[in-house]
């Protein structure tokens, strides 16, 4: 074996996966400026003088979450999911795969179900977002939540907010879906406990109302 091969470079475990920050490092500033077009304020980082990644900017955004306006400063590479969870405290929206493959972070943005991990917070500027916390009327469950409770449409419950939001998106368009349509509409959500039969039962109960 050659010496170069034998002595490991300063390879990092993280080199084997694409990180958002790493990705941004690669694409540089230009793309980001494009992405933030329309955002009113761009400010440099003030965060403890850390060496920030080239290309990262901060911006003021206005997010309307569950009917309430939030104005806050976000970094341009922060996902909507991280901002909802960490900055605004909407921890009902869950992080499972963080790469748009599982649906646990499904929220409704401007009437459409989206994966919050696959949208940047700056993309959600001036948008209306509904999270699982926005469904119930105080302690009175939303009919979808009621149906999931009555039919045991979950086990550990971690993917459940995502399933509930995806169900809302289905029913908003089609109040009486059949089983095939329900499966199609929920195919982008993974339930590792595999409570699928009871989830189908929950949504069918709503469809038959």
């Amino acid at each position, binding site marked *: 074996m050659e010496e170069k091969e034998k002595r*490991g470079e300063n390879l990092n475990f993280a080199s084997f996966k694409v990180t958002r920050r790493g990705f941004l490092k690669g694409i540089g500033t230009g793309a980001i400026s494009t992405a933030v077009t329309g955002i009113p304020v761009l400010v440099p980082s003030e965060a403890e003088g850390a060496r920030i990644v080239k290309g990262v900017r901060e911006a003021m955004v206005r997010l309307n979450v569950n009917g309430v306006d939030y104005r806050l400063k976000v970094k341009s590479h922060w996902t909507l999911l991280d901002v909802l969870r960490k900055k605004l405290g909407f921890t009902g929206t869950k992080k499972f795969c963080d*790469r748009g493959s599982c649906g646990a972070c499904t929220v409704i943005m401007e009437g459409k179900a989206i994966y919050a991990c696959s949208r940047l917070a700056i993309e959600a500027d001036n948008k209306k977002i509904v999270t699982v*916390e926005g469904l119930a009327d105080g302690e009175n469950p939303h009919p979808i939540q009621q149906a999931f409770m009555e039919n045991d449409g979950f086990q550990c*419950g*971690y993917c459940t907010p995502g399933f509930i939001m995806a169900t809302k998106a289905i029913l908003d368009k089609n109040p009486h879906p059949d089983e095939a349509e329900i*499966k199609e509409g929920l195919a982008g959500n993974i*339930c*590792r406990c*595999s409570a699928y039969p009871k989830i189908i039962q929950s949504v069918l109960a709503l469809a038959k109302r």
Partner: protein
Amino acid sequence: MEQKFNVVGKRLPKVDAWERVSGKARYASDVYLPGMLYGKILRSPYPHARIINIDISKAKALPGVKAIITPKDTPTFRWHKDMPILTDVARFQGDDIAAVVAVDEERAAEAIELIKVEYEVLPFVLDPEEAMKPEAPKIHPEGNIIGGKPQVLKRGDIEKGFQEAEVILENTYRTSLLQHVTSEPRVCVAYWEGGRLTIWDSTQYTFGVQSGVAKALKLPMSKVRVICEFMGGGFGDKTTSERYNVLAAFLSMKTGRPVRIEFDRAENFLAAHHRYPTVWYLKYGAKKDGTLVAIYAKVIADMGGYAHFAGAGGNLETIKSVYRCPNLMAEGFSVYTNKPEGGFMRCVGHPQAQYPQEVHMDMLAERLGMDPVEFRLKNFARLEDGDQDRKFPFTSNGLEDCIKRGAELFRWQEKWRRPGSSPGPLKRGVGMAIHACRHGAMTEPSSGMVRVNADGTVNVLTGTSDIGGGQKRTMAIIAAEELGVPVDAVYVTAADTEVTTDTGGTTGSRQTMTGGTGVRLAAADAKRQILKIAAQELKTEPDKLEIKNSIVYPIGADKGIPLVDVLKKAPATIVGRGIGRVPKNKVIHSFAAHFVEVEVDVTTGQVRILRLVAAHDVGRAINLQSLENQIEGGAIQGMGFGLLEEQLFDGKTGLCLNPNVLDYKLMTIKDVPEIKPLIVESNDPYGPFGAKGVGEPPYSVPAPAIANAIYNATGVRFNKIPISVRAILEGLKTKKG
């Protein structure tokens, strides 16, 4: 005698359903504390390497970085015997080398990148059979065979058994490396405050984390509190304390601030546990009438870089307990390779064993010219068989019912046809498999506490983590049934080491029987105290009284005194305590039989599962709704084990190829067939109201049933799972060729 129950056996929602559907439930991953720091672990990029030098100077200079630790900071921590907390020899891609804590996640990640590690890359070995050879790279100083020799089971005279056999069948099998893919990753927040440590962890066993962290950091257990209010799946990955718990706690003690460590998804694929792969050789002998007379099994269990436990022993358990057989020999090698650490996944090792055993039995039935169901019915282990080596009987056994009633519901007789006889490109076939295992049994510690408040409401305090099976509801039902109060009067506090008692982990399908027995005995203890007071009031004997719907009655009478009035006479709050003991010289097992119909598209290699009948002996259904949910969910995961799931490693680099939820294939809602759970109630004399556990058994049975059904459809045997599309196409080609 048919027992009458007030609450047991109903269909009830989970007690914390509202929290879970509203987003209010606080999982460990939802714990964000003021002033919290973020920890990150530097992981090996190589499957096998010696760390020559770690230079942290640049990382340390990064503003916002609060502490960095390397192997030299942690040598005195006590841990698993072969696994350091931080290692200077990486034994798998993802092995823990150093840890950083910083003001936010990005700063922590940046610091990790700035740590300069000099590695000496070592040769690695991935294949367990290669690892057993003398020339293989040594992963630990004592060699790659864990314990230096195989674990061996012997019963009767194996040579005589094969001499008596009129039909002998030999074959080899393989199972793959699977990930739990818990939706909530490994995550904890540790806070050292005022000389006490609190850890919010996503764990199946808070008491295991408490004792593990206390030992590693030399803290008294009284000063370590572990809480798991909600957890997003475990499936065996979160069974005890892990390195990240100790690292988070240590870093919090070092910085005086709360420290959060959360694995990202790739880390969770590599640095968490997984279902270890196995290689099998089976040789079974039977008489012409179908009687099994000899079982020989050899398994090589690929445990990865560290021996969380010697997995082969777990694999061999079902080989010895599902069938009645006088002559048996089984050898199990547990072997180190440079893969991640093998562990428990929805059973210790039974799924890996039941796939080969049940396919082998299917082949043997065909060789004997017997129907697969008849062949099982002839040989399954009966009530009296139990532990066939020590001659202890089972406490209950509903396997015969599972097989017979399952076959009837499935319409097996009508559906079964000669293998490979299905015409056309869409070939249909049916298959079945059975299962028996000690999971679902009672273990120690089994304990519980029940407090009856002055207003007649009840608090149950139990160590069980509600993993999603509705364990809290189960405990509420058991307490309500025993105490004679409405189930809504019961509130359950679970999995907090400060206020509950140890009931073992929510592992091994044990909580219904183990935690449940503790709670039932605690409720009975509280009831005794209540009835003693009531007896004085009513001038009678306590054993002549009963409680129904929160009213204390003389047995058979229709007038009584309200429970609240009795409680007014109590000198203090009634506290009941229960400790369950495992019965001696008895074997508690759960049983199952699955029947499945598949459709194989021979032009595309796609397998569609059409329907599954899942018959399970659960002793007694405590909550029908969550019981069905667990059977269905376990069976669907088991289908993934048979058809889809495999974590792949590149032979040239030793690196994982699919550490993400897209390339690692999981069952989706579209793959789900019609599933009919069939509940068999054998009323176990030791279970609470007769109940046994059911968490793991549904997982073990679908994969072999599907493999047998695919054979029935196509006439081709597949000796490795998952049976992928490619395997099907290649198998069909070979058959034609």
